[in-house]
């Protein structure tokens, strides 16, 4: 080892025989996602370079700053292979910044900001305002069972419109959409990875398993 610390996961993260899931590790709370996926039996790896996409059967794009993920994914040659993988059916779950990266259209983006696209939705960044308006709340999401989903929104985006190919999974009390799916793609405005809510990741892993079996 030539460096004092290398970006790696806890021993055992990759040891599972479960589905091979990558977590985009350019910036943000990727370790929290890796932790949840490992607990659920996935074989988890971090993705910062194009060749790290080769071995995975699914990808999570974490929370963080979408403008930073966009710049780094383009600067290091990840954006184009990722777009191709999404088009070819790679299951991808994005939380917050990850949802923005997956949206076909992004409102309130900075000049030149691009998304990977794939989800037929229009997403607005920082839709609730500053950190003072960040909040946590309970959501009813029938697809995940009766027990409400506790959702933490951190300067989160909302889905302003859902195109014909995508489907809304959850809304907040004023009717705005905060979770969507479309085939193998899943996106949430909030962060199940930071409050022990595993059901979205479980739901995502069923997509990953189904896609791997079909392939």
């Amino acid at each position, binding site marked *: 080892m*030539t*460096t*004092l*610390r*290398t*970006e790696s996961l806890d021993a055992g993260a990759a040891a599972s025989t479960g589905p091979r899931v990558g977590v985009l*590790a*350019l*910036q*943000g*709370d*990727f*370790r*929290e996602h890796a932790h949840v996926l490992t607990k659920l039996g996935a074989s988890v790896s971090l993705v*910062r370079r194009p060749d790290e996409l080769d071995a995975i059967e699914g990808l999570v794009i974490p*929370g*963080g*700053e979408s*403008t*930073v993920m966009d*710049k*780094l994914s383009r*600067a*290091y040659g990840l954006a184009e292979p990722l777009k191709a993988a999404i088009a070819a059916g790679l299951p991808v779950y994005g939380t*917050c*910044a990850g949802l923005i990266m997956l949206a076909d259209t992004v409102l*309130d*983006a*900075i*000049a*030149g900001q691009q998304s990977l696209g794939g989800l037929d939705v229009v997403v607005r*960044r*920082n*839709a*609730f*305002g*500053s*950190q*003072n*308006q*960040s*909040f*946590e*709340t*309970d959501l009813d999401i029938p697809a995940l069972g009766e027990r409400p989903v506790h959702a*933490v*929104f*951190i*300067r989160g985006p909302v889905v302003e419109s859902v195109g014909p190919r995508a489907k809304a999974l959850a809304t*907040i*009390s*004023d009717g*705005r959409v905060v979770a969507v799916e479309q085939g193998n793609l899943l996106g949430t405005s909030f*962060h199940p990875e*930071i*409050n022990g809510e595993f059901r979205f990741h479980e739901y995502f892993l069923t997509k990953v398993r189904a896609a791997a079996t079909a392939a």
Partner: protein
Amino acid sequence: MTEASVPAPAATSQTGSSRVKRGLAEMLKGGVIMDVVTAEQARIAEDAGAVAVMALERVPADIRAQGGVARMSDPDLIEAIIAEVSIPVMAKARIGHFVEAQVLQALDVDYIDESEVLSPADYVNHIDKWAFNTPFVCGATNLGEALRRINEGAAMIRSKGEAGTGDVSEATKHIRKITSEINALKSMTRDELYVAAKELQAPYELVLEVAETGKLPVVLFTAGGVATPADAAMMMQLGADGVFVGSGIFKSGNPEARAAAVVKATTFYDDPSVIAEVSRGLGEAMVGINVGDLAAPHRLAERGW
């Protein structure tokens, strides 16, 4: 704020909880937070890939050079920076100056830095940070100081380093100190932890939590003297979750290029070939001051207790 007309999300929702406050810091991990003194600099920082900006009237190097009492920035400046960028905006209040913090919360900044870079307003008490909806980041030179700040409600810690010097040695000292003290707790028995809490002058419950989890209960960034991509990568290899760069960017010859290079070196901190590549042709780094040449009264890290 353009979003002011958006209705409140739900009657049952809660803002300002610990989870929400600490959560924003979680989202900043692996990123670079840059000091900016104008809206133009904020734009450059966002375009270069900063994960947040710190809005200031003077960078620490100028505070150091000009002397005098350093205070919270003009609200007009902070608002101009908030209006310019879409990434989170932080701003500094003096240690113990809870009214400056109230003003910053009213200005809707995303994080308040109770900072030793400004002149302390209270030499006994820090701000009661639980009383605020806006999260706080505080500096620390060691684990006990970090845990005292967390006990007061800090939702993020940055090791202090020596701001405005361009000399990374104090940043190195402080991040190493914090991580080695955490490592020492991990191997202690419960009876030893009572003594450790006494020696760290920190609450036992927080000491126990650190011993059990092997990390602080909040995100830990490094600050103070980071001036090059290699400095940033070194802090990451030493265990930081991310870095603050103060004077190091806009006191250098080519801020745009240096800012982008520090961002890349922070993400690829464990890949010397990337760090080498981004370090090429950045022009002059900030001239800097060796910390050893600073008389003790000019050392900012000693403010706060």
